[in-house]
């Protein structure tokens, strides 16, 4: 692959950083007018760069594009550099997509906070892009902190009591997770002397013969506990529903769509899925965590009375599927988990966009107060049906294929009972989303909502764009599977 292409990956960090610096030199009026369109443009460029990079990796048959940092273009031995691979670029694509949708929704929803929102969202994008690009566990932790701090500020953007409470809970849990992660990293570093991915991977492959196996075990448990808290995996999920519910609508989209996944699930997929696929103890532990998340998330969603809270609990349940797929330890489970990572970003963003549309038009997200909105909001109602069908794993939508791969992989690795529970919980997903759909969109329209109109154009555009991806990816998925099979990945 020509070296010039490695410059492509600079756009993931350089563009948001340049926009941040340049726009803060202008006045408030210029920022309010142009900042959000520029944010959307950056996200679009990021999506295109990620797609081009994925094509290049496949064309040149390379695993990753390795490049050094900004002020000294050479790789030092033991340096922390960037080396994005296929999974990184898929994550960067998700970040770009969810970022674009967030800006589209924020434009009409946050007219009075546009430049504050843009500033912090661009930092958030930088943090998540950094997570996807780095090749060193400590750098990963640094960018996780960037992501967590930005998310905390965004949740508390309006400084109302609920927002502050939600963000405080998130920050408190995030701080505990950070302490776990940092201590875990220190303990692993004691044994390896480096935290570069390849060094840690090589060490973990043979950790029993290392200098301090007990220390490694403690370090790994602490690391995984920290990542699980950040990912919102049950039983570490206490902060997640409050944070999602109390955040402003566009912030909920980016939180539910991508932040939690990049801040926690990404690292779990890297460590457990890529580096420790053969460890039976780790796989069984994550199998239980995955199952607990799936069941607990689904049960809690049924009992919730707030649209956004249902989506938050549904996120816990769907993250459980990703963790369960990883716990299978097989390439099929890994591919299923990575695709569910992508699909969940798309359909959960759609659902949060729809909740934002409902909230903007009715000023409430309480399910019992809503009803019969489908006639007034047909685009929102229809895209909501597509998104929840994809979440429940109904064919031929995108969510069906990733769940199918996960359940087949789990069946092969852990047996029929575990796969059966995962399958049964998927039916629960359909049940609680049908309940939400019926109560919010179907049935006779309530008197107070008779004059409600469809959401603004940019929100509808976001909703339609995501729905098209859900249907489109579902339709072409058999060809994607065939391609992966030809590459020898599954």
């Amino acid at each position: 692959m020509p070296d010039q292409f490695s410059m492509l990956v600079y756009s993931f960090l350089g563009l948001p950083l340049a926009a941040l610096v340049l726009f803060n030199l202008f006045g408030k009026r210029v920022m309010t007018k142009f900042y959000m369109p520029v944010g959307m443009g950056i996200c679009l460029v990021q999506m295109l760069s990620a797609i081009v990079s994925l094509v290049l990796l496949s064309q040149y048959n390379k695993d990753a594009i390795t490049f050094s940092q900004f002020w000294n273009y050479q790789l030092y031995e033991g340096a922390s550099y960037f080396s994005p691979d296929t999974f990184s670029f898929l994550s960067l694509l998700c970040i770009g997509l969810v970022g674009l949708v967030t800006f589209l929704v924020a434009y009409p929803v946050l007219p009075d906070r546009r430049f504050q929102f843009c500033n912090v969202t661009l930092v958030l994008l930088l943090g998540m892009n950094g997570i996807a690009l780095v090749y060193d566990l400590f750098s990963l932790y640094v960018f996780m902190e960037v992501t967590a701090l930005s998310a905390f500020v965004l949740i508390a953007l309006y400084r109302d009591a609920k927002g502050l409470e939600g963000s405080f809970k998130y920050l408190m849990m995030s701080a505990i997770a950070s302490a776990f992660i940092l201590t875990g990293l220190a303990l692993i570093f004691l044994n390896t002397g480096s935290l570069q991915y390849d060094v840690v991977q090589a060490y973990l492959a043979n950790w029993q013969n290392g200098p301090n196996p007990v220390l490694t075990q403690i370090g790994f448990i602490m690391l995984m506990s920290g990542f699980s808290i950040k990912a919102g995996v049950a039983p570490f999920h206490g902060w997640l529903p409050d944070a999602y519910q109390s955040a402003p609508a566009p912030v909920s989209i980016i939180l539910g769509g991508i932040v939690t996944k990049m801040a926690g699930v990404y690292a779990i997929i890297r460590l457990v899925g890529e580096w420790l696929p053969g460890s039976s103890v780790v796989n069984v532990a994550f199998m239980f965590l995955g199952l607990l998340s799936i069941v607990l998330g689904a049960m809690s969603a049924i009992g919730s009375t707030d649209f956004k809270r249902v989506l938050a609990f549904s996120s816990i349940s769907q993250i459980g599927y990703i963790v369960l797929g990883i716990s299978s330890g097989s390439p099929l489970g890994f591919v299923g988990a990575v695709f569910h990572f992508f699909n969940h970003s798309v359909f959960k963003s759609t659902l949060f966009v729809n909740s934002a549309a409902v909230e903007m038009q009715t000023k409430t997200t309480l399910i019992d107060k809503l009803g019969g909105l489908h006639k007034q909001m047909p685009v929102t109602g229809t895209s909501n049906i597509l998104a929840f069908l994809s979440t429940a794993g109904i064919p031929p939508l995108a969510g069906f294929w990733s769940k199918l791969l996960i359940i087949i992989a789990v069946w092969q690795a852990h047996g029929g009972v575990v796969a059966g529970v995962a399958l049964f919980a998927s039916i629960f997903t359909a049940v609680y989303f049908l309940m939400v759909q019926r109560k919010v969109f179907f049935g006779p329209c309530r008197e107070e909502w008779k004059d409600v109109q469809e959401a603004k154009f940019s929100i509808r555009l976001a909703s339609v764009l995501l729905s098209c991806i859900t249907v489109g990816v579902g339709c072409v998925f058999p060809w994607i599977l065939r391609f992966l099979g030809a590459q020898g990945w599954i």
Partner: protein
Amino acid sequence: MNNELILIVCMLVMLVCGVTAAMSRSMIKSAINLAAVSVALSVLMFVIGATWSAVFELSVCSGLVTVIFISAVSLTESKLDSTTQRALHHSRFAMLPLILILAGVGIIAAIVLNGFDVVSTADITQTEKPFREVFWNLRQADILGQIIVILVGTFAVVILFKERGKKI
């Protein structure tokens, strides 16, 4: 003072401050105790050779995060209703010290049984590279991350404190 003694003191400080943070009735005191845990953790990391982690823990967790914690507490506390206040004051963490003591005894037993030696482990991480080279040449990604953390900290202060009189 030798390294082992510093390690033991740091661990004791972390334990005491951590338990106090969880059990304290005042959120501000909890945040300050958490900062003390971070400071002790930074010293511990520095002693065992994890210099880079120590620097970041000290600057971000003990400094920036504590400022944001205390800001959030001062903005939130007055808004909590009396029921929430009572729930926060309820001594639901009464069993925490006992659980921690049992967990600590378990971990120490595991370490002793496995013949783990902290000091010899620390030798592994001794690096010949000077800190300047490590900081500027080897950890460029982290420096970029640090700059962005400071940036988000600035935004946090501006967004959370500007026009306070109007909104809160």
